[in-house]
């Protein structure tokens, strides 16, 4: 019943996005939509190239993961393997609090503290960059990655640790050689959920990324993500116009992005489990 309802909701959303977004092809071609480098939805003639935003999203997400994955796994290993028992619970609470902070607060902090600091330190014309967005998003995805990875590490049976130690392995060799590899499926799940959090996040990114819809030449320039585009332009768009349909198309691309991620994650997770 619940499954049927979720499936129905998924089908309706997907159908609606495709239907409304598909109409954009009256104004541009699929190649022009996905490969076009210019986003001028309201000029005459308009141009609906999503590529800068797709690249922007990818850049910011990859940057966020580059921060959140190593740190998250590190935190998980520290809490589960290294920290003395009395430090374990306080650490977990701190991670959970971090996960509970609203994204607008992260964005606010980024805008007022991180961005001026980046601007000064790196000598940039503006601190609102892909780098800033990556750092804020990475911090936001960190607790997700850390807490799920920690569950995965804790779930590794202690008999494997004992076996490794009894062979003369050091604690560190045991963690790297046995615990991490046994926890791999769970850690992969943690990475994918962190990825989902980073791709879909809107508010904080909107506040720190600069939002210029041009092809980002580097991490140190302003970028705009797909999510930010939707949030910024939905209020001003004329219902039924090509611009309106183009925004739906952007939503559709975002949707396909996350759908692919989830499916890929599911498949990889399954293969890892089977190989044991």
């Amino acid at each position, binding site marked *: 019943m619940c499954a049927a309802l979720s499936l129905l909701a998924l089908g309706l959303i997907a159908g609606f996005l495709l239907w409304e977004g598909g109409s954009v092809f009256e104004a541009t071609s699929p190649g022009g939509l996905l490969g076009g480098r210019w986003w001028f939805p309201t000029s005459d003639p308009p141009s609906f190239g999503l590529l800068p935003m797709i690249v922007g999203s990818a850049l910011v997400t990859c940057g966020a993961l580059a921060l959140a994955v190593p740190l998250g796994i590190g935190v998980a290993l520290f809490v589960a393997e290294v920290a003395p028992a009395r430090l374990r619970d306080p650490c977990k609470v701190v991670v959970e609090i971090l996960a509970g902070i609203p994204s607008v607060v992260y964005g606010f902090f980024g805008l007022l503290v991180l961005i001026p600091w980046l601007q000064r330190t790196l000598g940039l014309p503006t601190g609102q960059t892909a780098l800033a967005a990556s750092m804020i998003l990475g911090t936001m995805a960190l607790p997700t990655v850390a807490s799920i990875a920690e569950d995965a590490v804790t779930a590794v*049976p202690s008999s*494997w640790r004992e076996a490794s*130690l009894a*062979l*003369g392995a050091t604690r560190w060799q045991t963690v790297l050689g046995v615990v991490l590899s046994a926890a791999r499926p769970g850690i992969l799940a943690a990475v994918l959920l962190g990825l989902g959090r980073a791709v879909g996040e809107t508010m904080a990114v909107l506040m720190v990324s600069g939002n210029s819809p041009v092809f980002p030449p580097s991490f140190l320039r302003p970028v705009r993500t797909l999510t930010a585009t939707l949030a910024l332009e939905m209020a001003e768009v004329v219902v039924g116009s090509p611009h309106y349909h183009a925004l739906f198309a952007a939503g559709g691309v975002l949707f396909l992005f996350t759908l692919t991620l989830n499916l890929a994650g599911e498949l990889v997770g399954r293969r890892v489990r089977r190989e044991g």
Partner: protein
Amino acid sequence: MVREGIAPVLNRKQDRPASEPIIEIKGLSFFYGRERVLQDVNIPIFPHRVTAVMGPSGCGKSTFLRVLNRLYELVPGARAQGEVLFRGRNILEEKVDVVELRRRIGMVFQRPNPFPKSIYDNVAYGPRIHGVRRRELNEIVERALRRAALWDEVKGRLKKSALELSGGQQQRLCIARALAVEPEVLLMDEPCSSLDPMSAARIEELIAELADGLTVVVVTHNLQQAARVSRYAGVFLAGGELAEFGLTRQVFSSPRDPRVRDYLAGRFG
């Protein structure tokens, strides 16, 4: 392996006469917090012999085994007192290198616990962490699997997951994994208790063969098994007291302690 090298098994046998113990436990007491688990235990472990440690459940016999490779240290609040002399050196001393100690005194656990890796990687794990070079690995893995009487069953599928093996095969794999680092002593904590009778019989045969190459200490609550596989035997009683120790034959035929007589007659435990 590293450092001491892979001393050929046969030479080792001549190194020391069988009469001189390879491990001597002297006045060993053990505590979990305030609770006393072993009291004043004295046992010699003779090289190239199987020594069985018996006793009712909860008598501290598994703890005793975990003192010999210092694995007890994983439990917070655990404390050992007395002396455990391994080749004359007290391994309970703080400065003893436990990594080296555990390479030389291997362990097989009650439940088979192969890593979630391939059969090959399970056996190669130990040699790898001790720095054995890649081209020597194949030979070491094969030799260890042969000694554990598993080679013929797995030689065609070394890359398959170890978790696909049956329980008895998994336990033999764990034995091979322990043998791959060429330990001098092998500690076995009720190695057959979670296996079916056929698999248990194979492991028993294996234990007898292993004693050619190394020293075995096996903990068991199965009296027949102890009688079949061991040369020396000790009996722990509740409270961690070693009530009897000697040649297995004598322990079974003429135990001195009346409580041990009752235990061996199956009146408790």
